[in-house]
């Protein structure tokens, strides 16, 4: 439905996008993801026929966006980021105008306008002056305007920006519905949105396609692999346990995560979910399991890594990176940035439970409060504070 080949657009000396190529099948819902200034809007504007490309070509529904611009414009519903609407008109007048522009007959307009207003969830404000509407309502009107000609392709530039959480949820519901009937290309820098809406994601960074594929593919390809985390009471012979774990089919490697209280932590970098196998092994060996989890890097981590321009990592390095660096001696810039990404992801927990400045004294029994945060620990010889994490390890020291 949309074919983009080698698309480049320069604004004077500034290159907005360079060498973009991708293809959208009919009925696909694709999310454009990227930090600000990555070239999302520029690409969408080229597809809508608003901006010409410096070089390369783009086709929508088989028509070249430059040569058969009008044909393309008849087939797309484009909602620019700024949600352009005539502030002095009423909602229904704006829709009527759009209908006329698309050459809809009076009866078609009469039939369709209430329908799209209903779909966009703004039918109660059809007589309102657009200038008096709130941002979220205008966004809905914008969607209704884009939907009115029943286009084959919908190009939505940040359709959920500026909406409150409830509106955002509703908009998401609407977009899921739209995805069933139209080919949708939508951009956002809000990750959960893209994760929830778009099976396929194109990540743009600095005008280039950094990644293109389904979410699973991307995470698998670029995320540095998944891993299994096992926290169990394996007895004194840790080496044997590790050997047994490594013998399981599908396990590439076993890493010793050290002791946590009476339990021992193992990390198993592996491509598939091996919880069943590990569980069966633990059952056979009578290991008491406290935690057995399958962890994969999220799209969010992946995106942050691309946005921060960090190198892609090997599975081994990835699992090391997952652990917060409590010693504070990050060796390189990329390492520091990696820790930053990690911090962002686990920010609420990290904020609740400050990591100890140095490793706790050996005589203390420490107990992990949070399986994802090894830095958080408390002295078991003292009672647990009632009002949350007020008693920090620093007080003990």
């Amino acid at each position, binding site marked *: 439905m949309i074919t983009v080949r080698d698309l480049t657009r320069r604004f004077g000396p500034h290159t907005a996008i360079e060498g973009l190529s991708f293809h959208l099948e009919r009925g696909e819902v694709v999310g454009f993801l990227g930090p600000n200034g990555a070239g999302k809007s520029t690409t969408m504007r080229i597809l809508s026929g608003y901006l010409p490309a410096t070089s390369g070509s783009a086709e929508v529904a088989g028509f070249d966006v430059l040569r058969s611009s009008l044909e393309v414009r008849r087939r*797309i519903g484009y909602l620019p980021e700024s949600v352009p609407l005539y502030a002095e008109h009423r909602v229904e007048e704006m829709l009527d105008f759009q209908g006329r522009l698309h050459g809809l007959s009076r009866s078609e307009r009469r039939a369709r306008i209430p329908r799209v207003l209903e779909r966009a969830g703004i039918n109660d404000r059809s007589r309102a002056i657009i200038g008096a509407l709130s941002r979220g309502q205008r966004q809905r009107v914008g969607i209704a305007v884009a939907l009115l000609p029943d286009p084959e392709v919908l190009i939505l530039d940040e359709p959920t920006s500026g909406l409150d959480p409830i509106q955002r949820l509703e908009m998401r519901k609407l977009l899921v519905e739209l995805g069933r009937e139209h080919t949708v290309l939508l951009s956002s820098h809000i990750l959960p949105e893209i994760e929830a809406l778009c099976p396929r994601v194109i990540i743009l960074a600095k005008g280039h396609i950094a990644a293109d594929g389904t979410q699973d593919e991307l995470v698998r390809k670029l995320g540095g692999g998944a891993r299994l985390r096992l926290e169990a009471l394996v007895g004194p012979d840790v080496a044997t346990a590790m050997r047994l774990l490594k013998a399981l089919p599908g396990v590439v490697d076993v890493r010793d995560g050290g002791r946590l209280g009476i339990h021992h932590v193992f990390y198993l970098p592996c491509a598939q979910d091996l919880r069943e196998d590990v569980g069966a092994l633990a059952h056979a060996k009578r290991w008491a399991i406290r935690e057995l989890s399958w962890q994969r890097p999220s799209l969010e981590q992946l995106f942050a890594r691309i946005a921060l321009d960090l190198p892609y990592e090997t599975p081994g390095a990835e699992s090391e990176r997952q652990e917060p660096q409590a010693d504070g001696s990050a060796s390189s810039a990329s390492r520091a940035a990696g820790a930053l990404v990690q911090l962002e992801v686990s920010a609420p927990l990290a904020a609740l439970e400050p990591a100890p400045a140095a490793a706790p004294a050996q005589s203390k029994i420490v107990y992990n409060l949070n399986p994802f945060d090894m830095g958080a620990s408390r002295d078991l010889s003292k009672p647990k504070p009632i009002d949350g994490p007020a008693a920090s390890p620093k007080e003990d020291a």
Partner: protein
Amino acid sequence: MSGAWTIYRRELAGLFLSPLAWVLLCIALAFNGFFFVLSVKGFGGDVLQSMSFLLGGSYTFWMLVVLLPPLLTMRMFSEEARTGVLEFLLTAPVSDFAVVLGKLLAATTLLAVLWSSAFLYGLALAALGTPPDWAPLVSGVCGATLVSALFCSVGLAISALCNTPLLAAFFATIANAAILSLPFVDALLALPPGSPLRVALGHANVITQFQASFVVGALDTKHVLFFVVWTGFFSFVATRVLEARRWW
């Protein structure tokens, strides 16, 4: 061209929904009426002369013609570019020229409404017992509308060039004044009679083109064509500027 018609309807509604158009109409009508009464008195009740004074025969008319179109067209592209509506229009299934044409016709229509107020003066005079000569009145209104269209097209081209309405109005006023004062270049350069530039400048004299035809009550196709062609030319320029905007 149904696209141009749609845009025309929208623009006209937009103009009449904005207070600016009403304020301009109000001021221009008050101005016109005041000078018409003065001229009727000044010419000693010569209705014919007063009418030609009202439409094309006076400095007040040419002042309005230079000032009003830029004020109407200033927002049409520059403001829409700022609010982003231009992006909506230029991605709608209509050609750029249809957009320009629709806007041009809308601004011209508003001015035509203003000029046709002259009929009211004619009716008032007829009611008072001295019916005016209707033919020059009709041709005068037509001519004034054609001149307005020319200056509106200049205003649109400049509005497409500028990023703020104020700047667009300023430059368009200057451009309009420059077009009106083209014949003075002839006097300024003291060109020899018969030189091609002098002939060309003579042909580019908007005021004489206007007065030779519309003021005397004749609709000469030569003069009609003069205004239509130049309006077309500036509309074409506006369309090209609009296209060039996509590259900025």
